[in-house]
């Protein structure tokens, strides 16, 4: 029990976040009725979260290095517009259009990296400039009008589900079930390997009871998550994309030299520099990768809408930054986790979803979201000062 209390105290930030998410769901489950927790609505909620969650994953690392990106909405919209215009007006096929959009994203990332890392212009300004400039370029490439409809294969990115591998009709999706089983197996396997590695070297580990409890709870969460999807239409491709990006970035953050350097740069740039870390090239590398992630989010967004619009992605930067901050990323740099930001994004879209179900006046929706963000940061700061 004492160990449990200690672990709770040490990770209070993460637990508060999960409790907040559970609390929000509970409030909506009571006030909206069972429709909020129906597989159909939850599945829809996850889909609504995907675009912002993808961006928030990348944004986390950007904020960890002490930078920020205000241009994601415009750049994601721009990448989507490039893909849409190429396929609709120039007859490109889907892979070509997707690759061109990704290349555009990488190039924009390199542009930002150049100014921020090598010309030392604050990221706030560089990306504020891009927020304006790329909103303009969206108008340029689309000619100011909505570009639609898109190719079937392209639409699949944001709208289609992984097909059921059994052709016969079921009440649930068997592919989702298989993915769930695989995910749980991989999770338990990696955790066990981590633990046995530590044990072999005589490092400190949690007690066996707590370890099993942890495995059970997280496995149950994975099962519940995919269960919801299985009883709806299955696993959307966009969600698979999010999971792939999240796993990759999480691995980068926790297990690579590059990731470690990013955290050090954000935690103390002077100490990082004197420890032989090349700050400019690491920041440059991050922004290039991040540009590709933003373009991927733009593709999902455009595909979901089945159109490139001139206002696509407006306010996305604010949702993404809010998701990171609610998820425990420090704007001072040096601290933040990918999974935290995804939960942060889920909290934000749960609010959107629930308040819409309640038919709440849009006025209050904005006000409540604003207040939630404010109190999340205040909670964080008051916790830190203790």
């Amino acid at each position, binding site marked *: 029990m004492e160990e449990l209390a200690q672990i709770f105290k040490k990770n209070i930030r993460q637990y508060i976040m999960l409790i907040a998410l559970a609390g929000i769901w509970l409030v909506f489950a009571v006030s909206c009725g069972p429709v909020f927790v129906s597989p159909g609505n939850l599945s829809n909620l996850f889909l609504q979260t995907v675009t912002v969650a993808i961006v928030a994953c990348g944004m986390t690392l950007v904020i960890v290095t002490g930078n920020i990106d205000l241009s994601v909405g415009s750049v994601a919209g721009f990448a989507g517009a490039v893909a849409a215009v190429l396929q609709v007006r120039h007859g490109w096929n889907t892979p070509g259009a997707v690759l061109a959009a990704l290349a555009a994203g990488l190039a924009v990332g390199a542009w930002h990296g150049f100014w921020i890392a090598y010309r030392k212009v604050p990221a706030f300004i560089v990306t504020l400039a891009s927020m304006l400039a790329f909103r303009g370029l969206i108008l340029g490439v689309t000619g100011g009008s909505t570009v639609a409809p898109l190719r079937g294969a392209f639409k699949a990115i944001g709208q289609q589900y992984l097909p059921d591998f059994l052709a016969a009709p079921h009440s649930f999706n068997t592919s989702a079930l298989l993915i769930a089983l695989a995910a749980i197996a991989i999770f338990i396997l990696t955790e066990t390997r*981590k633990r046995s*590695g*530590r044990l072999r*070297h005589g*490092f*400190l580990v949690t007690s066996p009871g707590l370890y099993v409890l942890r495995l059970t709870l997280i496995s149950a969460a994975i099962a519940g998550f995919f269960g919801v999807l299985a009883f709806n239409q299955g696993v959307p491709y966009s969600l698979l994309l999010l999971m792939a990006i999240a796993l990759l970035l999480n691995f980068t953050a926790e*297990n*690579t*030299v*590059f990731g*470690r*350097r990013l*955290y*050090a740069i954000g*935690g*103390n740039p*002077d*100490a*990082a*520099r*004197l*420890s*032989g*870390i*090349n700050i400019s090239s690491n920041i440059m590398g991050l922004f290039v990768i991040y540009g590709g992630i933003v373009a991927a989010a733009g593709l999902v967004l455009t595909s979901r809408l089945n159109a490139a619009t001139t206002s696509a992605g407006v306010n996305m930067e604010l949702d993404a930054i809010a998701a990171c901050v609610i998820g425990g990323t*420090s704007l001072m740099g*040096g*601290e933040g986790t990918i999974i935290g930001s995804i939960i942060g994004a889920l909290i934000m879209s749960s609010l959107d979803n629930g308040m819409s179900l309640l038919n709440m006046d849009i006025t209050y929706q904005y006000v409540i979201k604003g207040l939630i963000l404010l109190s999340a940061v205040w909670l964080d700061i008051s916790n830190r000062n203790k």
Partner: protein
Amino acid sequence: MAHILEVAGITKDFPGVRALDGVTFDVVPGEIHALVGENGAGKSTLMKILSGIYPFGTYGGQVLVEGKEVRFPGIKESERAGIAIIHQEFALVKQMSVAENILLGNEVASGGVIDRPASLAAAESALKLVGLNISPEAVTGRLGVGQQQLVEIAKALRKNVRVLILDEPTAALSEEETRNLLSILKGLSAKGVSCIYISHRLGEVMELADRITVLRDGKTVCTERKSAMTEALMITKMVGRELTSVFPEAAHKTGELFFEVSDWTAEDPASGMRVEDINLTLRHGEVLGIAGLVGSGRTELVMSLFGAWGGRQKGSMKLDGAELSIKTPQEAIAAGLGLVSEDRKRYGLVLPGDIKTNVTLASLEKISSSGVLDKNSEIREGEKYIRDLRIKTPSVEQRVVNLSGGNQQKVVLGKWMMTAPKVLILDEPTRGIDVGAKFEIYTLIDRLARAGMGIIVISSELPEVLGLSDRIMVMREGRVSGELDRQSATQEKIMTLAASLG
């Protein structure tokens, strides 16, 4: 004559250190009273108490103004009592005009609206008091340091200051500006403004002061009229203490000369600071101490060798016979240099990180393959240095922000030991840490030297430099002012080389 300011039995403690221990000191009207002492003797701490930066209640003892006890809760109250401090780094808003700065916090205004003509007139009359003939509308940041300092003094005079505290006012001034400042201070003293003058430049002190107080280890050693003092006497009183026996006994057996810096000059274009014509050699197993006063260029020298300071560099650096060309810390580390920088919180540690991430930060390639970290070997390395350096911590995953100063410094040392440098440079390695940890660090330095590493130690504590070094290089104003070997070095000789006499 009645005292305008008097302090009696002032005691001030910092965690683990007693900075002031029963200091007694007084100032009479119109007097220039010099305060001298080694770095760390407690001069700045005393001045921070007088100017309200350390408020009443954080120290013991009494401060009296005109015979009455005062209890300053902050800077404002001490200014109201007529005490103002001119800091080493000026507290001026560089973007504002001279007049705006002089009147900052004391604006000439009615109903919150600034009266511009009256402001300019007020600023002009304040400038006249310090003999500064510039437009009050000039932008402060464009003035030279000497002029900025006079603006700062004018600002203090505007507040009816009766005691002006100057902390190393001439450190950044040219010869001519120094002359000018000294004559202005004499003029102010003739008008009844008292002045507490803190300086390492003993020549200036002898020229300017009416009385001189020497501080050592947080205690008042003596207060004498100038006629009863000489520069040599001041130095003896400043350093006069016995060497304690915490240092390793014998000198090291030194080996081959393997590190050589010749005609080294580096300049930082932003600050205008430079180190010039440095020649330095180091043998295997040798500890070279670098002594000098704050601002003498010691830190800048080692940072420039490490590729972390200065825009332009000239000169050559040879390690094991090979010429090095180092432009960045990466290149320095790859070449075999390590630098434990001063101010560990600012330059040494990633505070949100834990012990293992900090220890491995400069050697990530040693615990990774193709860019992927081996978490187990990371913990292993962290635990190795916890054991080796006896870092007191519950776990290798403890955040360094929660460690004591001594343990934090050991983490930084561990980081550099892990890079296995050939030359390890330590800049003020024991600043702000307790005696026990200091001793452990001395022992470690000795052990590394005996293992054949070349070590350079910068320290402002003379007993430390004397106790650790096989050879001592003394710097003054960006240059080497002399070199002493272990046998012949004394605190007096070092201070004589470090302070500019005459």
